[in-house]
């Protein structure tokens, strides 16, 4: 040990560091044997890890960083074991943080995939979520009563069936004689209006439950 009486089971830090600075090819193996098991054990003691291999990866990362930049270690500031322990701790926290963020992303994607309809701001989000006829049918079921206007009812039925052709809607709306751009605009308007109306009905129905 640097600056103290070395116990026989403690690594000779100064010798290891010197060998590493000299780029002795075996120095990395010596350092691994001297520090790696205790680094991993320390991380596992201090953290309850779902994946125990994270401690191994973090300890390994700390050693590899040290091998890459051995001069960053300053023996005047503390022991090499302490320096590596701090580096491993930091690397583990980074790994855990990355895992948490990855997990959050997965959960978020699953939420979107599994939820038929959004629960906040029902009108706008319901409109965004209504991309398929199936979802629209669900929404109508949740909204309760059907539509009074027979044209609206027929438009809605086309939407539920997943029909996308403008001509089909134009025929129902009686606008087949108009230019195609105009037809598209009016059809979109009708669809949006229906979606909004259903969204409001659903929100009102939910608030009275």
């Amino acid at each position: 040990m640097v600056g103290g009486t070395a116990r026989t089971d403690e690594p000779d830090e100064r010798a290891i560091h010197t060998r590493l600075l000299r780029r002795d090819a075996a120095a990395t193996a010596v350092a691994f044997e001297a520090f790696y098991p205790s680094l991993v054990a320390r991380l596992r003691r201090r953290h309850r890890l779902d994946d125990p291999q994270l401690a191994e990866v973090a300890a390994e990362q700390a050693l590899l960083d040290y091998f890459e930049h051995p001069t960053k270690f300053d023996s005047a500031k503390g022991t090499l074991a302490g320096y590596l322990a701090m580096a491993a701790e930091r690397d583990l926290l980074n790994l855990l943080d990355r895992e948490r963020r990855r997990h959050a992303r997965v959960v978020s994607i699953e939420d979107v995939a599994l939820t038929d309809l959004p629960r906040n701001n029902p009108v706008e989000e319901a409109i965004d979520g209504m991309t398929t006829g199936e979802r629209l049918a669900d929404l109508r079921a949740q909204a309760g009563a059907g539509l009074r206007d027979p044209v609206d009812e027929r438009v809605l039925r086309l939407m539920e069936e997943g029909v996308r052709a403008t001509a089909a809607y134009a025929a129902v709306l009686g606008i087949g004689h108009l230019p195609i751009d105009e037809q598209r605009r009016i059809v979109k308007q009708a669809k949006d209006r229906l979606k909004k109306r259903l969204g409001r009905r659903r929100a009102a129905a939910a608030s009275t439950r």
Partner: protein
Amino acid sequence: MRPDDRALLGRAAARLAGNPAFLAHLLALYRAHRGIDDAALADELGCDGEGLVRLALCRAPRRGTDFRTDLASAAAHAGADLTRLTSAVRRAQSIATLRGAAGANLLLAARDRDDREPGADRTGDHGG
């Protein structure tokens, strides 16, 4: 080396097989090339399983005049036969070089394809 530590260090060595800065990488290339397992590789290098883990955790030898010094240090630390280790490492480096060249050729071929105008210089397109 305690058995627990050996298993732990063995896993680290296995992960380092993907890191060209370590002997683990060259030993993995050589082992795959020969189609042998760890025990057979250790036997071939004149060391035991623990020695093989130690070798894998050593830095890959530098090129040039330091090559032999680096391998001598690794062999001494692992109790391996320097001559056999040198032979295996040289073979592994050749494999790595060939793989690198093959990869570069593939990249060049892909770039040539990308650079070529659609339909240009295609044999048979000019009639005749």
